[in-house]
Each structure stands twice: as structure tokens, then as C-alpha cells.
């Protein structure tokens, strides 16, 4: 009996899709756990270096670094951290929307914009947008290495040193929970020193070799660690967003399969009923 062959084929194909989405969900779940671990592992460094900079801001350094001085904004730089792959719900779309809003605000003020992208989704988006992309890094994988980001960061830091850009921001998804990711824009440069109560006694570090070199090194590492943190956090967001999206996809596939099965059974039932009535009426005619 060849009733509803199309429906059966359709069910098969949806089942195959469901298998894939389920597998992706499980893969994302296990990767997410690892990404979260990595995120937590990178926190102590960021915290420690923040402490050191905090101390530095409290001391009275003989040398004031340009990374800590606010200047008039004529051009801003953005480091946009996005994922390399899709199928992670609205994660990248939300991030780009937030970025665009901020870009428009700067644009309205007549401020120029440079963009650096980490992650291929951001690259293709800003390329389409026609933004000025000054550096690009992608395919960092699930366990990003800080070494792979130095290039992109250095391009932006150089631009800041040379006065091409006057502010530097990093855009990434902040990991709130498995269900919630928050597109965030953080200011990297100039480093915002928190207002602190002045210490009564004057003190300063001993610097070896020179204050300038040491402070430059320290602040460069600080910016790098913040970008690294952003990338790691974004990976955790990507995996959890993908897990949630794939779970929703699997559930939807299940619903579709149920509906199709119902339709198939109805069609089958209708065919049987029709056949019986045909036989009955045939018998009655005889």
C-alpha cells in the first residue's frame, strides 16, 4: 500500500535532521563545560593584573603612560569578538546589533571608526558593512591561545600609540548563564582608573629597568589579558548558545515528526476506510 509515501520520506528526513541537531547539542554541551573551565582559569590573571594596575594608579609614578590619559576622541577602534561558526541562535546577530548601535552613535558625532575582528562571522559582517577592517584573526578553535591574538591586538595598540585612534573598545558576549548571554562593549584604552581615596603617604615602585618600559609592558599585558578574557568568554557563550539553539531545533523537529505522523496515520486510515467502503459497495452491487 503506497499511501503517504511523501509523508514517510519527509518524516525520515526530519528524523535525520533531528539526529544531527541532537548530536550537535551534546557536543556543544561537553565543549561548553570545558570552555567554562577555561573561562574560570583565566580569571585569576585578569584579577591580579588589575590589582597591580590599581596599585600603580595609587602610587605616584614618575612617568604617566599615554594608555592612562584621556584625550580628545577623533577616531575610535573596536575589537569585535565573534564566533567562527553559525548555528548558535541569535548570538552573533545580537552582538552585531549592539555594535552597530554604538558605531552609529560615534558616526553621528563625526568620529571615525576602525574595526579589528576576531572570529570569521564578525569579519564577513563588517566586510559587508564596508567598515575599515585593520586586522583580522579567525579560526582560533575551541581552546583559543593568547599568542594567536597578539597580532590583532598589536595593530590596535600601535594605532593608539601613533595617535590614529584615541579610544579602544572590545565587543564580546558576556557569559551570564547557560541561557543568557549579554552583548557587552568594554573600554580598553585609555584604561579607566577608578577614583580612589588618596593615600596619605607618597610611595612609588622601584622600576627595573625603566619605568616607561615596565609600565608599557604591564599595560600591554593588561589589554591582552582583557581581550583574551573576552575571547574565552565568547567561546563559552557560543557553545552554550549553540546548545540551547540545538535543543530547540531538536524539540521542533520532534513536534514536526509528531504532526507528520498524525497526518500520515490519518491518510492511511482514510485510505483503508475508502477501500472498505469500495468493497462493501461493490459487494452490494453484486
Amino acid at each position, binding site marked *: 500500500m503506497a499511501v503517504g509515501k511523501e509523508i514517510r520520506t519527509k518524516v525520515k528526513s526530519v528524523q535525520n535532521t533531528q539526529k544531527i541537531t541532537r548530536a550537535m547539542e551534546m557536543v556543544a554541551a561537553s565543549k561548553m563545560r570545558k570552555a567554562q573551565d*577555561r573561562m574560570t*582559569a*583565566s580569571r*585569576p*590573571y*585578569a584579577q*591580579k*593584573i588589575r*590589582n*597591580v594596575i590599581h*596599585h*600603580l594608579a595609587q*602610587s605616584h609614578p614618575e612617568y604617566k603612560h599615554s594608555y592612562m590619559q584621556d584625550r580628545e576622541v577623533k577616531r575610535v577602534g573596536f575589537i569585535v569578538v565573534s564566533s567562527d561558526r553559525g548555528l548558535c541562535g541569535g548570538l552573533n546577530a545580537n552582538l552585531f546589533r549592539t555594535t552597530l548601535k554604538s558605531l552609529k552613535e560615534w558616526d553621528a558625532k563625526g568620529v571615525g571608526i576602525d574595526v*579589528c575582528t576576531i572570529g570569521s562571522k564578525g*569579519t564577513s559582517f563588517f*566586510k559587508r558593512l*564596508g567598515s575599515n*577592517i*585593520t*586586522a*583580522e*584573526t579567525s579560526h582560533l578553535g575551541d581552546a583559543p*591561545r*593568547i*599568542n594567536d591574538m*597578539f*597580532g*590583532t591586538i*598589536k*595593530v590596535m595598540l*600601535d594605532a593608539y600609540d601613533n595617535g590614529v585612534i584615541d579610544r579602544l573598545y572590545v565587543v564580546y558576549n558576556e557569559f551570564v548563564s547557560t541561557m543568557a548571554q549579554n552583548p557587552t562593549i568594554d573600554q580598553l584604552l585609555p584604561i579607566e582608573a577608578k577614583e580612589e581615596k588618596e593615600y596619605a603617604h607618597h*610611595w*612609588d*615602585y*622601584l*622600576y*627595573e*629597568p625603566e619605568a616607561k*618600559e*615596565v*609600565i608599557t*609592558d*604591564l599595560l600591554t*599585558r593588561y589589554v*591582552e*589579558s582583557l581581550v*583574551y578574557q573576552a575571547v574565552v568568554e565568547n567561546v563559552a557563550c557560543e557553545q552554550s548558545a549553540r546548545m540551547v539553539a540545538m535543543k530547540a531545533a531538536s524539540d521542533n523537529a520532534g513536534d514536526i515528526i509528531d504532526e507528520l505522523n498524525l497526518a500520515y496515520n490519518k491518510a492511511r486510515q482514510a485510505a483503508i476506510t475508502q477501500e472498505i467502503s469500495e468493497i462493501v459497495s461493490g459487494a452490494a452491487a453484486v
Partner: protein
Amino acid sequence: MAMTMHVDVVSAEEEIFAGPATMLFAPGAMGDLGIMPRHAPLLTRIKPGEVRIVTEQGEEEIVLYVSGGMLEIQPEAVTILADTAQRADDIDEAAALEAKERAEKLLADQKDDIDYAAASAELAEAMAQLQAISRLRKKVGR
């Protein structure tokens, strides 16, 4: 009891050591440093090499290898911000150039896209003209 200071050794990717120590040796940029509690505040770069930490008990010595980084000393605490890899200006420079090149290449590709768009616009125009001509011909033919 011997005086101790708090020592933290962290790298961007993980926490390496945290705990009290009575003494610490580190390869500073200007020469090796031996640090005891109540050292004057000091900020320096460290060279690739080994960091030795003498823990509270005094007998135990922990040896860590760091590939450079920063060392911050406060009277009661020492923080080592270890690098995950050896840093050299020329390597950084090369990486920066590479990132720049990738972006430039992308922008060049974008130009191709624009050319493609321009070409397709020209094509559409040409097709419209051809259509108009053929329509005119039909009219004339009639």
C-alpha cells in the same frame, strides 16, 4: 614563626601557584632577585627561567619554569604574571603584520565584490537596452 608573604603565580590561561612563602627567587630583567617578606615595592620584567619558591615550612622548595613575564612586589605580597610564551618584539611585529595583511586581503576581496556588483548592474542595463531594442523592432516589424 618565620615571616611569610603571599605569593601568586598566574598566567593568562591558568593559575599556577598561590600560597604563603618565606622566600622567592626570580630571574629579573636586571639580574636575579631574591625576595623576602617586607621587600620594597618593585615592578620589573622577568626573563625566561626558573622561579623558586620556599614555602612556609622552609624545607619545601617549589621550582617553576616561566617564559618571562612581570613581577610585582608589595611588602606582604608578590605577584608573578607569567607569559604563556616567550615574547620578542620582532615576533609580535610579525604577528601584527600578518593580521594586517589578512585584513588587507579581505578588503581587496571586497573590492572584487564591488566590481561584481558593478558588473551585474552593467549587465542588467545592457539587458534592458536589448529588450527595448527588440521591442522596438517588433513594433517596426508590425
